[in-house]
């Protein structure tokens, strides 16, 4: 009896989470996979026919947007690492008693809706807006100059909107570093830069890794920033999926695009994890 219990126990423990995953992850994924292989139209319904052509069409028609999204995601992520590291470092090592205040300040703008904040940037950056109007009056930029509708505007919006998702994980990793480790490095005659490079930075890598996961994936599939700050020259893959699903009711195409995007992102992340050595990273994160 006891043995039966003991064998069953782990499964029973996994049951709630497992059911949750089954219901809200596996079922929708399978539904979407099925949709991506269907054929038909919205009036007559879509039928499963194993129509792989959807994927071929999706890739050939929207290759440009797919590549553009990945490039935007990558640029955003790199810029975020460069910007977030000093912020997180400063809060973790020089924040003193006010650490939590600084973190709160960092998060404060994010209590306002994501869409609303992006629209506010639109107001600020617009052609005759509060930023460009004075510059144009002063003759510092040409009257035709504009920021909105360019790749810069979209990447700027992405960086702005995902900043905390990079700062927080890096901060957590840095915060965990025992100051005595750094002191020990100094005692062993490491220059401050060397101590940072050989001790602090490697210990912060798990945070960077987590930050990349939390920003690269959503930034690449984002559609709000491009819709609000961009133009038809900056269309991202998320906008295509949205248009196909909502404006055209072309669910198979939308699903095929989503699945392909997921495959690309997953393989990118796996390669990245392999390159960085996941196990070390995960072990470090677990410590």
């Amino acid at each position, binding site marked *: 009896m006891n043995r039966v219990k003991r064998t069953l126990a782990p499964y029973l423990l996994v049951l709630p989470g497992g059911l949750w995953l089954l219901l809200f992850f596996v079922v929708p994924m399978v539904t979407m996979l099925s949709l991506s292989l269907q054929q038909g139209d919205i009036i007559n319904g879509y039928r499963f026919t194993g129509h792989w052509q959807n994927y071929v069409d999706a890739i050939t028609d*929207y290759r440009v947007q797919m590549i553009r999204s990945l490039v935007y995601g990558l640029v955003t992520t790199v810029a975020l690492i460069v910007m977030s590291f000093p912020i997180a470092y400063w809060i973790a090592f020089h924040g003193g008693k006010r650490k939590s205040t600084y973190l709160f300040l960092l998060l404060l703008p994010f209590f306002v809706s994501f869409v609303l904040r992006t629209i506010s940037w639109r107001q600020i950056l617009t052609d005759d807006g509060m930023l460009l109007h004075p510059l144009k009056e002063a003759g510092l930029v040409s009257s*035709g100059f504009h920021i909105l509708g360019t790749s810069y505007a979209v990447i700027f919006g992405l960086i702005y909107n995902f900043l905390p998702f990079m700062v927080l994980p890096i901060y957590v990793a840095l915060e965990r570093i025992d100051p005595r480790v750094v002191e020990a490095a100094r005692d062993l005659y490491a220059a401050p830069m060397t101590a940072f490079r050989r001790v602090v930075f490697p210990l912060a890598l798990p945070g960077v890794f987590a930050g990349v996961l939390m920003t690269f994936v959503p930034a690449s599939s984002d559609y709000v920033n491009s819709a609000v700050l961009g133009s038809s020259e900056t269309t991202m893959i998320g906008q295509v999926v949205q248009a196909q699903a909502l404006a055209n009711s072309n669910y198979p195409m939308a699903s095929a695009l989503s699945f392909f995007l997921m495959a690309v992102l997953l393989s990118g992340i796996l390669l990245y994890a392999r390159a960085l050595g996941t196990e070390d990273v995960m072990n470090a994160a677990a410590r």
Partner: protein
Amino acid sequence: MFPTDKPDPSLLRGMTQRRLGRRDAFRLGGVSALGAFLAACGVEGKGGKPQASVAPDAVEKFWAGKAKNGKLDFANWPLYMDPKKPELKKFTAQTGIQVNYQEVIQEMGPWFAKVQPQLSAAQPIGYDLMVITNSIQFGQFRSGGFLAPLDHSKLPNYAANAAKSYANESFDPGNVFSIPWASGITGIAYDAKKTGREITSLADLWDPAFKGKVGMFSDTQELANFGLLALGLKPGESDEAAWKKAAAKLREQKDAGMVRNYYDQSYVDALGKGEVWLTQAWSGDIFQKNVSDGTDFKFIIPSEGGTIWTDNMTIPITAANPVDAITLMDFFYEVENAATLAEYINYVCPVPAAQAQIKEHAAAATGEDKASLNGIAASPLVFPGEADYAKLHYYVDFNTAEQQQAFQNIFQPITLS
């Protein structure tokens, strides 16, 4: 009342009987267990061919046994009625019917996507009356058999007061499923201070002087219409070859860097902020923008022609209170009610006699109100004259779902690239 052609009893039958789609799908995908499972996740459509017409007895069958219930749920677009809803209060006082008015429709595509599953399953959507634009989705609602055929014997005011041209709408000839709520004109709006000259034609949207300052619509039909008209082609009579030519024309405009962006409703804002100097625009918007923000934007119907679209009152086939709904539809065709509605929304009024009524209201009013009411009565954008109508075209008309998909595939890549 209006003659309706070509019966198809299979349409109504298809709606009342269990569909076999799922089983068919199983058979197709049923080789492996996964295949069967995948197949079970299909999106069910209507089954059968798209239908443009109804059976001669469809009206009778639908309305038989339907009675007034004293309430109705009305789905409309934002800003399409005075927020104080004076007309609805009057309606309730007159008929005792309570109206639950909701501004839930923002865009046709998403609205169709939202209600299509319930309608396909013959379930009520929670609304007895909805205002939908003549668009790709109107065709989808119609051919899906999702709209109740109207009993014109219950629409005496419509017969008496509506402009006769509405009976010939290409998207619903004879008003079998719909009668207009309001119409609007798609033309060009511009900021004369920025353009420095008058804008008169579609060709101005291709003028290199305005490089990067032109706004176009992201809606594929609106965009395609202007491409077709710029080539001198009539949208309502266009075919796939014409679409390809129009797409090439629009692509030329895009590749030359003329287009700042392809906008949805946000074009009004972009015009106000100087992002665009001239843009495709909807008539009522510019009127309201000028009134509310004190701007002085011009709106013109291009010399090559503009388009007229119509938002239509329709009853979903699964409506719980259709009698109440059709009563309200007819109520808005009383001249007085049509007049007060037009005074607020400033879109094209389907009741010509409302013009005289608004003038009467103006005569009774004083000061600013008087001037604005007189302006509305005289506005060609609310009461277009014969000469204006002659320049206005209806949208591209689709007969089949394949045509719609082909059309989308031709024009969507222009806005999404």
